[in-house]
């Protein structure tokens, strides 16, 4: 079973607040990802990382930032939350290397910005 954790699981916060969504994995995976998923819609990649000190933006324009200081930790920060940020945020990890590997997903954080 995959060991990837996200906190908080649910968050309701007011407009303008700064928030950090936490994601940790204990599998030693090099690759980590953040996706945004609205109800009934596809997952959109917003950030990814191939290892420590490596971060890239995904296809979905996002006002969030990420950091990868440790292999196991990949937090996502919103400097100023807006109602348009209301969504589910899924973190995933995968093995590194040149091959193609499946991703393991965390349970998600459901964010509501009022």
């Amino acid at each position, binding site marked *: 079973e995959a060991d990837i954790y996200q906190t908080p699981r649910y968050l309701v916060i007011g407009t303008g607040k700064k928030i950090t969504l936490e994601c940790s994995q204990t599998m030693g995976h090099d690759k980590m990802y953040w996706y945004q998923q609205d109800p009934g819609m*596809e997952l959109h990649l917003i950030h990814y990382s191939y290892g420590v000190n490596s971060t890239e933006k995904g296809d979905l324009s996002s006002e969030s930032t990420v950091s990868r200081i440790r292999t196991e930790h990949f937090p996502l920060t919103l400097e100023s939350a807006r109602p348009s940020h209301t969504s589910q945020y899924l973190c995933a990890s995968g093995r590194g290397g040149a091959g*193609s590997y499946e991703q393991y997903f965390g349970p998600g954080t459901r964010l509501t910005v009022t």
Partner: protein
Amino acid sequence: EDKVVQSPLSLVVHEGDTVTLNCSYEVTNFRSLLWYKQEKKAPTFLFMLTSSGIEKKSGRLSSILDKKELFSILNITATQTGDSAVYLCAVEARTGGFKTIFGAGTRLFVKA
């Protein structure tokens, strides 16, 4: 622009029916196609396909890839209510770095 299109968007069947879910894609530098099952929260991995014509099988589920026609199918035989979920198709492509593009999913509901 890279894209992954799944059909149908939703499907309602009765227990015991066989279903076929479709996934077509247009990406540059294809690497692999993956199927995931998403029930309540997080997607869970089902299959990864990299070569055409080789069927992957796990119990009542099977999948195959056609890299010439750029599509994959996921078959579920003798469906059960526990198969009710959203089935996601994702393609990993090498565009700059490695990116994974997800389709919108097929929502399957199996009636008892």
